[in-house]
């Protein structure tokens, strides 16, 4: 579904990704793990068009998208839940979701998606008229995911969804990610919670200082000495 081929991204003059290649097959959960500053978020930002790679090709459903402006990429079916959630904190929960439905003009579809999202996150329905900024961290993350789902994406990219959420809710969050995937949406997940994200991943990549150093299925990486030593502290 998504094919990233040898992309290079630099901030100013400083290179952040040098020749990263990987693929996300349709229907799977793919995790990219790595330490702080490895370039995980940069990959997602490059895919969603927030950053332009200086070299390389990003192909989505067979179409090169690396030169598209961000809004066109969303139209093609990629939704990005940015790190730190980035909600419109002064808008209500409902308004946040409505903004997420921007690319969907048909009101019937929008209503249907809204109901689906409320069935995944009943809390959001209860709180729909509340300002997004007054939600708890976990609820905010749910809203950020719900908002991204409003565009009915084929590929959902999540950047550090478990960051700043109380541990009890982290389990629930990973269940939700699985649930979303089972409903037919491909997921690209970037996480510092290596253990959990490898557990649910069909396929995973380890990123180190802008390069992919290890790849395999989630289980393979969980078993690998390198990952256990460097990221799981075992």
């Amino acid at each position, binding site marked *: 579904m998504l094919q990233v081929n040898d992309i290079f991204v630099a901030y100013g003059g400083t290179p952040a990704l040098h020749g990263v290649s990987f693929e996300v097959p349709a229907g799977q959960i793919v995790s990219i793990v790595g330490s702080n500053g490895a370039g995980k978020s940069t990959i997602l930002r490059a895919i969603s068009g927030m950053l332009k790679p200086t070299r390389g090709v990003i192909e989505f459903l067979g179409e090169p998208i690396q030169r598209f402006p*961000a*809004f066109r990429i969303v139209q093609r079916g990629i939704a990005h839940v940015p790190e730190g959630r980035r909600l419109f904190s002064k808008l209500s929960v409902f*308004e946040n979701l409505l903004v997420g439905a921007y690319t969907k003009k048909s009101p019937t579809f929008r209503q249907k998606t809204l109901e689906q999202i409320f069935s995944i996150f009943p809390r959001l329905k209860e709180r729909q008229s509340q300002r997004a900024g007054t939600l708890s961290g976990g609820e905010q993350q749910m809203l950020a995911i719900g908002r991204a789902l409003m565009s009915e994406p084929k590929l959902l990219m999540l950047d550090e969804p478990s960051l700043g959420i109380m541990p009890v809710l982290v389990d629930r969050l990973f269940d939700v990610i699985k649930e979303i995937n089972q409903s037919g949406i491909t997921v690209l997940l970037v996480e510092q919670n290596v253990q959990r994200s490898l557990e649910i991943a069909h396929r995973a990549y380890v990123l180190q200082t802008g390069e992919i150093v290890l790849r395999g299925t989630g289980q393979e990486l969980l078993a690998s000495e390198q990952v256990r030593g460097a990221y799981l502290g075992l």
Partner: protein
Amino acid sequence: MADTTLTEGAAGAPARKPFPLAGVAVPLLALALLAYPFVFRLPFQHNLMILVFLYASLGQAWNILGGYAGQSSLGHAAFFGVGAYASSLLLVKFGIVPWVGMLAGGLVAVALSLLIGYPSFRLKGHYFVIATIVLAEIIYILFTNWPFAGGAEGLFLPLLPEGVVNFEFHSSKIPYYYIIFAILAVVTTVVFFVERSKLGFYFRAIREDPDAARSLGIDITRYKLIAMALSAFFTGVCGTFYAQFVLFIEPNNSLNFMLSVLIMLIPVFGGSGTLWGPILGAFILIPLSEFTRVYLSGAGRAIDLTLYGLLIMLVAIFEPRGLWAVVTRFRSRETLKWRFWKSQV
């Protein structure tokens, strides 16, 4: 219509709808303002309110871009000025009625705004503000040195027989009063609908977090341009009104930087990003400046700016969201009391 159910979802949920502002207060206020010129008959009193309405309209126009879409402009005098010059040049050089000129003025302002907006919306925050100042200064210098438009000496508009068609009234200022009142009503109505439309959500989303809006698929440049064009159109229309009202324009009265500052100050003081903020701001700041000017004559000019500075500081300290936020705070407390009382009966 699924769309209605969507909006009902929002309205049906427990919302805090305070005092019936729209139902009672607004019609009452509108009636009072319609009667005003016949209760207060002095030309000064008419002149005062005309200026209040003019600046309220300008503040409201600025509010669309600066308040709702969050793109603060300090160059709105450029739109005002080209609006004034467009209609005046059409009248002086080609004998075209100012009403047509008003539309032309608005459209020229829109064209200018798109020309300015497209490149400068790549800039964020302070850089955007600086770009608007610079571009407005360029327009100012161009008009000062453009002989066809009267250069630094400006343009005197011909004195024509008074009447609605000629947009000139000499014996009484009352017609101007109603015209600018109508303009204010139109801009405010537009803002009212924008605030409640999806357009309004997108503007606010862009103001809150442009990157997040972008990542949700909103073409933010396009929406900023829409906000800027709407804002510029009404600013240009006000420019034409001003030209017809004073019948003389020059770069210094219609394009200068202090005008840009005032256009921004009024909504920021009153409450930017709110429907009533710019109107409230104009109702306080304009009379303040007019009265100090009257009572202190020459010295007043500096005094009103000093007072502005003081008021802005007070607002910044006690309620940075502007004066309207103070009103709503009070209002929601009143509604709570009212609800409590109703629940007891």
